[in-house]
């Protein structure tokens, strides 16, 4: 049992890493032959990096687009980030003081994340515009996240899992001798679904996270009158200035 779970976890992590690396390699292999930042854009590389940062941390464009969606999306993503941070204590041997301190916040974040997800799911059915562009896959990802969240909250509040055993199991993977997986069904479900989530990231819309970093409309600085950027494939064109 421990061995199977460990193998799945390692496999999923490998798929995540390899899949993402492959995807990013594909993106990087293609040039950006022209300057296409959405204007107004910062004039420097540093400024453009700040712009991407603002999008990543504050969802700036989404804020301008749709306030309720921004709130729900923030609740979910921020909640998820805090929950993941809280999960660190299952892998580090001696949790540092800050990690201990944020545990209550992390539990609250779990609820925040669930509330956000429920809103996102409801929207998919209640807003006609959104329902129109929703496919099975869009709902499936939300349901998967909700299931992971629910099973997680259940183990936290109702059917407590032996945290120390979980920790022992996870650290045992490092030694390539997995052991001691707690046999609680809820926890096992939680773990299995999380493994599934990791594995599908590179093949699903969850790619939006790295996508933002590589999006030329957001990460390009505005400097086209100063810099030329002929792509390699364009240099063969006849005429001046290549």
């Amino acid at each position: 049992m421990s061995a199977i779970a460990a193998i799945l976890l390692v496999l999923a992590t490998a798929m995540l890493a390899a899949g993402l690396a492959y995807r990013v390699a594909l993106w990087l292999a293609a040039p950006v032959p022209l300057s296409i930042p959405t204007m107004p854009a910062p004039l420097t590389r540093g400024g453009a990096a700040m712009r991407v940062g603002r999008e990543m941390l504050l969802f700036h464009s989404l804020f301008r687009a749709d306030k309720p969606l921004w709130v729900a999306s923030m609740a979910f993503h921020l909640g998820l980030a805090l929950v993941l941070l809280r999960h660190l204590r299952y892998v580090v041997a001696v949790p540092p003081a800050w990690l201990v301190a944020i545990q209550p916040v992390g539990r609250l974040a779990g609820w925040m994340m669930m509330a956000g997800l429920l809103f996102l799911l409801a929207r998919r059915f209640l807003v006609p515009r959104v329902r129109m562009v929703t496919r099975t896959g869009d709902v499936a990802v939300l349901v998967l996240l909700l299931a992971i969240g629910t099973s997680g909250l259940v183990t936290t509040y109702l059917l407590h899992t032996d945290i120390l055993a979980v920790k022992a199991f996870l650290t045992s993977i490092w030694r390539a001798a997995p052991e001691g997986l707690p046999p609680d069904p809820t926890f096992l479900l939680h773990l299995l679904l999380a493994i599934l989530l990791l594995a599908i990231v590179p093949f699903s819309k969850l790619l939006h996270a790295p996508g933002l970093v590589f999006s030329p409309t957001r990460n390009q600085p505005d400097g086209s009158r100063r810099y030329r950027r002929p792509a390699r494939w364009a240099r063969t064109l006849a005429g001046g200035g290549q």
Partner: protein
Amino acid sequence: MSAFEPPPLADEVELAAPPALVPGAMAHSRPYVAAPAHNQALGFPAERVPDWERRAVEKLGELLERSRALRVFLDSCVKCGACADKCHFFIGTGDPNNMPVARQDLLRSLYRRHFTVAGRLLGRHVGARDMDEALLQEWYTYFHQCTQCRRCSVFCPFGIDTAEISMAAREIMDAIGLGQKYSNEIIGKVHKIGNNLGLPEPALANTLEGLEEDVLEQSGAAVKFPLDVHGADVLLVTPSADFFAEPHVDGLIGYAKVFHQAGISWTLSSHASEAANFALFIGSYEQMHKIAQRIRQAAVELGVKRIVFGECGHAWRVAYAFLNTLAGPWDFLDPAYPVPQHIVEVTHELIRRRGIVLDRDANAGKTVTFHDSCNVARASRMGDAPGGQFVLPREVIKAAVPSFVDMHRDTTHDRTFCCGGGGGLLTDDLLELRIKGARPRMQALKEVVEQQGVTHMAAICAICKTQFAKVLPAYGFPMEMVVSLHQLVGQAIRLG
């Protein structure tokens, strides 16, 4: 399409709620297909190639290798719908395929089917589709209902730009022999003659002479409209509409008066007698590059020191953002000036250092508002600071007229609405679509007309001006309301 009557506008912008969905509402709106000769002139297959389904997929594969943006955009959409109600064509028609995300999905479905694991395994559950006649017809219909205005990309949390997607789709359609008549015919004319109108050198010279006489008569000053003058300081590249149509030509007179009063020597070129570059609309880098070369050739040939662009939105996008890459480097020009410059930058600087003097009283009685052209607002800049494309035109207008009013903030600056005629859609076979697409702008205009007494709307784009002259009457406004920005400037310059 004869007269299409749009339903009445609301009184205030805020009252215009997102429309109810009307599936298929614009399924009938398609531009004329290019004739074989139009396609061949650009090196595209004359007619639908036999194995077009396979060729379309292959072309998509090529484009994916040429453009990171396309790849990232096709991979990153989460179907959040933040963009859905931001498109003027969706607001004006209610057709769900005019939601930017749905428009993207028309191309994304083919991408998912052939280039992603999920699409190959799960098919339509993740929105994957095969290329077939039905999909191609949807492409032709709805990728010609996008003016590539980039408004959706402002609001998308990942900056996904539907303009890039519809350019790619049009490029694929050209590659299989399904071109759009309007754009391809015009690009052919530029390659052959040098401008969109197909106006040869003698006719152009004639027109400019006529303008010199007109201005002399009106102002008593011998304002020149030089053509092909070697050794002039400035090469002015302007949309060919400026040579003829109203209100464009009043803008051209305005530029001439600015140069005249400031004592700047300038010239037009009969070889590069067009600022517009419609190759942008069909997504073709090669065609865009070819058209841009004419400007380089003219600059070299005439030995000018600076290049200045007249009022045209997409032309300024190509000029500001692409020209350096397409036809640079410009090391043979005067390094004291950015290359290229916008005429508004020139005029703004001249006003600032009193190189020209404007008299607001010459425009007495006018209350003017300004339509930010989509390509200028979201794809270019003017001046030294980000956002100069919003500030400079407004400052120039304020220096030229007694009263200026801005429209609703959700419809200006980078949130401006497209006029509804950009992106290669400024053709009479799409008139119903154009009228419907203009609705959000007309809505905002109505508000300032009724509440603040606006009499004129200034524009800095040939397409906007033509489009507004056509659609203003449909919404009960006089067509003379739309004016060239440099028409106001020209009027405020007192000569003689």
